[in-house]
């Protein structure tokens, strides 16, 4: 038995080396789809920056793989911890409904992002109107393709509301403005993985050797597509556009494998989510025309959401190609 006592002491000592905190300011926790990728690392900068104001204690966490089941568990733990507010970027808004309802029932403030169909939320923050953003990406791609040829769309997953809206918004724009564009095998799922995107792009290139356009959704889609295009030596014959960050897509932008990217700054989105959560904690509301203190969110539009909550829309997108990528060092 003595050995077990020593073992307990050893375990205790190893865990005890982790510092504990306690503070009187409200705690806001941001839960992202997956931790450790550039996109959400950049978001964390915004989360941390908001925390520096001292109004609230802010932190960011998320699962190590983009599995919504793990995200639900993290939120459940935070509900138990009874934090003041939760800001979440759901992997799958529908699957999150019961756990977010549980949080609201316990009086925890909820802010979501990339989930304008979420019912159990108080405010959903969107950088822009999603179909319009998809159409904007498609417009750039179609112009690059000179208005004709086969093209396809990639999404992180079909359950991902925004990705699907961009793909559909793009398709709608092509149908309306570019009759000679032919959409083939739309909405390839990439699981937010560049390797899957690479494999899918290779399959598409094999199936349609004359394909000219790719529209990616996940920040890693264009990386996989770009790699496949480059290996096939088709940089000059294809137009690859999608959501990504210069730090992720920079190299392939320079070689021309990726022709252009668009994005919203996740740092600003992270900051605005926390700002809105803080307003909720203070019992305030957000109305159309309000300035939320970040670029592109200076005059937001507020509309009714899918449930009792509301959707906050900014105008925060940036179009980047190899000429202006240096202006966005992240």
């Amino acid at each position, binding site marked *: 038995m003595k050995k077990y006592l020593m073992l307990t002491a050893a375990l205790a000592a190893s*865990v005890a080396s982790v510092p504990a905190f306690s503070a009187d300011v409200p705690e806001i926790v941001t839960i992202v789809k997956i931790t450790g990728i550039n996109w959400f690392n950049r978001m964390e900068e915004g989360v941390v920056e908001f925390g520096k104001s001292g109004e609230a204690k802010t932190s960011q966490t998320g699962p190590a793989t983009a*599995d*919504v089941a793990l995200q639900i568990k993290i939120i459940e733990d935070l509900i138990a911890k009874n934090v003041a507010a939760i800001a979440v970027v759901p992997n799958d808004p529908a699957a999150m409904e019961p756990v977010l309802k549980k949080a609201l029932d316990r009086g925890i403030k909820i802010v979501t992002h990339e989930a304008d169909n979420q019912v159990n939320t108080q405010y959903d923050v969107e950088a822009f109107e999603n179909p319009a953003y998809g159409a904007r990406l498609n417009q750039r791609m179609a112009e690059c393709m000179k208005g004709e040829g086969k093209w396809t769309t990639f999404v992180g997953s079909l359950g991902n509301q925004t990705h699907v809206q961009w793909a559909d918004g793009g398709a709608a724009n092509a149908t309306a403005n570019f009759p000679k564009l032919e959409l083939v095998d739309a909405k390839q799922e990439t699981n937010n993985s560049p390797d899957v995107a690479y494999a899918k792009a290779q399959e598409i290139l094999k199936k349609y050797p004359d394909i000219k356009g790719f529209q990616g959704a996940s920040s890693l889609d264009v990386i996989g597509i770009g790699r496949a295009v480059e290996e096939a030596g088709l940089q000059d014959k294809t137009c690859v556009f999608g959501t990504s960050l210069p730090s992720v897509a920079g190299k392939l932008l320079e070689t021309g494998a990726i022709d252009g990217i668009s994005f919203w700054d996740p740092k600003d989105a992270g900051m605005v989510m926390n700002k809105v959560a803080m307003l909720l904690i203070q019992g305030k509301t957000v109305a159309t025309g309000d300035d939320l203190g970040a670029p592109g969110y200076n005059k937001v539009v507020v509309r009714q959401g899918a449930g009792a909550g509301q959707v906050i829309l900014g105008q925060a997108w940036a179009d980047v190609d190899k000429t202006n990528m240096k202006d966005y060092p992240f």
Partner: protein
Amino acid sequence: MKSLLDPFTKFLIVTIIAIFIVVGWLSGGSFLDIYNIQSMGFQMAEIGLLSFAMMLAMMSGNSGIDLSVVGIAILSSVVAGIIATKLAGPAAPVLFTCIFVAAAICAGLVCGFLNGFLIAKIGYTPILATLGTQLVFVGISVGLTGGAAMTFKYTQEFTYVGNEMILGVPIPIIIFALATTFISVILQIMPFGKRYTLMGTNPIAARFAGLDTKRIVMITYMLSGFFAGLAGVIMSSRSNGVKWDYGSSYLLIAILTVVMAGVHPNGGSGRVINVVLAAVALQLLSSTFSILEFPAYLNPSFLKDFTWGLLLIVSIAVPKLLSASDFLSILFSKDENSVPEGGAAPVKP
């Protein structure tokens, strides 16, 4: 008669108590809050049930493993969702729930039957058979749902199964407790359990003893499918829907739980109580990393994976070392398989 506390049981109990004391203290008591205990109860049942499914396959010997447990859980929920929606719409939520549960369990049994058939009748290695069926089950789920999440509208009662409590006890934990009793009765009391354990320990001896090993393997994988189907019910109830990639990270966690519980990968030995304790220990650690605060440079998610891995290694090493009479004897012992002088060569099965 096995002693009540084998080294794995002791180690896991000590670990659980240690986590409670240390994390309870570090969190200023909020970890020991009844709400947090309940919250952890909601979370651990699905992993616990999948671990039972995994344990049954591993204990059956013949390098048994069931890589398709998550696939079965997903496919069962998808099939049950389609059937329940057809037979009972949003207007009859209680009927919907009953049909869903029955259909999911039946689908789990059918999936398990397929695994058992491939392994027992056709002679596939379990790892190959279930790797194949895992992909088949997920593939069918993607096909049936079109890859999107299948959401059950206006069936509030269905979400009660995974999200409500009876007398302060989360319903998933009640289901898990019933499942624990069920599996214990099968393995400890019913004649099937004796035959199953014998087969897991030595399949050749079992066959020569006149046991119908093929039938036992079939039943084992069907039981495995049963528990996976039940896990599917809780998973889809907790998210009020099902999607093909939901719980994709659970397979490794289930294997981790079972191995940590001291279930021997070569079959035969393994105890239900240890699997329950291992599931509890992993859940406690998992919640620890969500509740405690860490310096920004330590990413809690990766720290959690790291700690789980560490706990796995320690949980296998420590009981072995502690049960050895002399600590050093393990380090300096001669190769066990070496032939003692004048002795007979060991017979390999």
